[in-house]
């Protein structure tokens, strides 16, 4: 079973690498956008899915990555690759700055505060000179590997594909570690987690910071791919769309979230012509989803036993309800 899963995953990766040869430029662009969303949703998945902290300002970290890279490359003429660790560092710090005051807040207040932070970042980008005010930053140079300049649609597809694979791996491995479990314990019951010796403050901050770093990575690549960025790309609606992808797919579930990312991007393309309707459709979809299937399309499974096995146990339950020694 496990082997079968591994094989199909490998196959998927190979298909993803071959796809650019088969797709036209339009669908390649759509697919690239899906991969951006895969990275972003994986990052948000850590914060919302694993740790259970509702973040409505996640686009802010996307912005921190994009602007850091853009400014360092245009004003200071840095190499793209060198801007990545700096952007990640800034994002981590931003994550901790957002996280620290929210540690004691209840989930609904937390949502509002993160939204407020997200808006503040956007307003800063509009008003500061270094971020190019509302027109943003343009003329961001292309990244190079040795003497090769990444410039074509395909180049960026492969770049973001690799980053998407890495981010999925990172989130998977973190999720299956002591740290990832601690995040989930906090989501399930904060007080009980604290009573079990889990320092919730430290782990929540780590969750914010990790999520922010992954978001910033997507931002950095976004900046060089678009070669121009503006505050409009980092609005509240962007945060909502990323959250929507995570929720639709299934909080905490990696394959679910990937599906969510694909749906959120591809659906509007398929519904083209119904352009005006897309946010209305998404809004209604959110409500319907929460009422009828709050766990998402492909929810995370926590019971590791087969269901059939369980049902059997259910029947015998009455007999051995009292524990035998």
């Amino acid at each position, binding site marked *: 079973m496990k082997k079968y899963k591994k094989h199909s995953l490998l196959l998927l990766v190979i298909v993803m690498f071959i796809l650019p040869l088969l797709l036209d430029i339009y669908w390649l662009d759509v697919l690239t956008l899906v991969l951006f969303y895969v990275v972003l949703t994986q990052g948000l998945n850590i914060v919302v899915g694993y740790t259970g902290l509702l973040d409505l300002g996640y686009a802010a970290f996307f912005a921190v990555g994009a602007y850091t890279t853009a400014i360092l490359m245009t004003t200071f003429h840095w190499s793209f690759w060198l801007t990545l660790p700096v952007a990640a560092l800034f994002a981590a710090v931003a994550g901790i700055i957002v996280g620290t005051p929210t540690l004691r807040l209840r989930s609904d207040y937390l949502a509002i505060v993160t939204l407020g932070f997200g808006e503040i970042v956007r307003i800063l980008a509009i008003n500061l000179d270094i971020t190019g005010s509302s027109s943003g930053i343009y003329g961001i140079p292309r990244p190079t590997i040795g003497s090769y300049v990444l410039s074509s649609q395909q180049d960026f597809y492969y770049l973001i594909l690799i980053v998407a694979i890495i981010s999925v791996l*990172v989130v998977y*491995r*973190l999720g*299956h*570690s*002591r*740290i*990832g*479990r*601690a995040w*989930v*314990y906090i989501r*399930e*019951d904060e*007080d*009980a*987690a*604290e*009573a*079990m*010796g*889990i*320092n*919730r*403050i430290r782990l929540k901050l*780590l969750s914010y910071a*990790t999520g922010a770093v992954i978001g910033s990575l997507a931002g950095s690549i976004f900046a060089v791919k678009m070669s121009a960025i503006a505050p409009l790309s980092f609005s509240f609606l962007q945060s909502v769309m990323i959250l929507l992808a995570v929720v639709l797919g299934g909080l905490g579930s990696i394959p679910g979230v990937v599906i969510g990312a694909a749906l959120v991007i591809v659906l509007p393309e398929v519904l083209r012509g119904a352009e005006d309707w897309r946010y209305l459709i998404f809004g209604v979809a959110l409500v319907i989803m929460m009422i009828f299937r709050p766990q998402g399309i492909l929810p995370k499974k*926590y*019971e*590791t*036993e087969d269901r059939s096995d*369980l049902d059997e*146990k259910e029947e015998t*339950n009455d007999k051995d*309800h*009292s*524990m*035998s*020694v």
Partner: protein
Amino acid sequence: MSILTVKNLKLQFGGLLAVNDLSFTVEKNTISSIIGPNGAGKTSVFNMITGFYRPTSGEIELDGTSLINNKPSQITKLGMARTFQNLRLFPNLSALDNVKSGMHCRTKEAVWGALFHTKSQKEEERLIEEVAQECIDFVGVRKYMKRSAKNLPYGAQRYLEIARALATKPKILLLDEPAAGLNFEEKQYLIQLIRRIRDEFNITVLMIEHDMGLIKEISENITVIDYGCKIAEGTPDEVLKNEKVIEAYLGKEDVI
């Protein structure tokens, strides 16, 4: 030798004095109980000892170390574990994953190890798995190991919470009404379990309980609280004969 010392503990919520000038000690390797009528302040005392409430004044020491101003997680790391009055398991996670949480404070691998699956990380994961399974076996819920905590029978959930606390490798275990909601047979099993915790692991047990039968059977020492004050202390026989205690439970004028 005492393991837990509580001195002049006081807790005030606004105008309400929930705990007033409470002092008691718990001896190493004993099974002790705190009893008292509903609303007497027992759970508040537990919450202060485990760091969930900050006492208005007073001192709490575990093995000579002051616990005041420590976070609950730090206190757990110092060697104190607890269960909750109304079961606080991680409902969606498997029983095994629930118990693994206890090992968090006894392990140290961070992001790096998780990402690169270093040798020490793998060893640590093995250790966590091993200890968690041991604890599950110890309380006897192995057959439910892979099921979500919320789908376990009620009794098993109670035992699972104890297993989770044991996984933190405590010196002292605080049980908040462990027998609440259990039937007769389950209570008998619980009594065995508490004894085994003390005898096999040398863990001191302090519990809050309402079930007098259970307390009489296993408690070596009882502290009685009413309106936040200590009104009696001693062995079960001494305490249950104490007039103040009878009065607190039954009222002065009432004739039954």
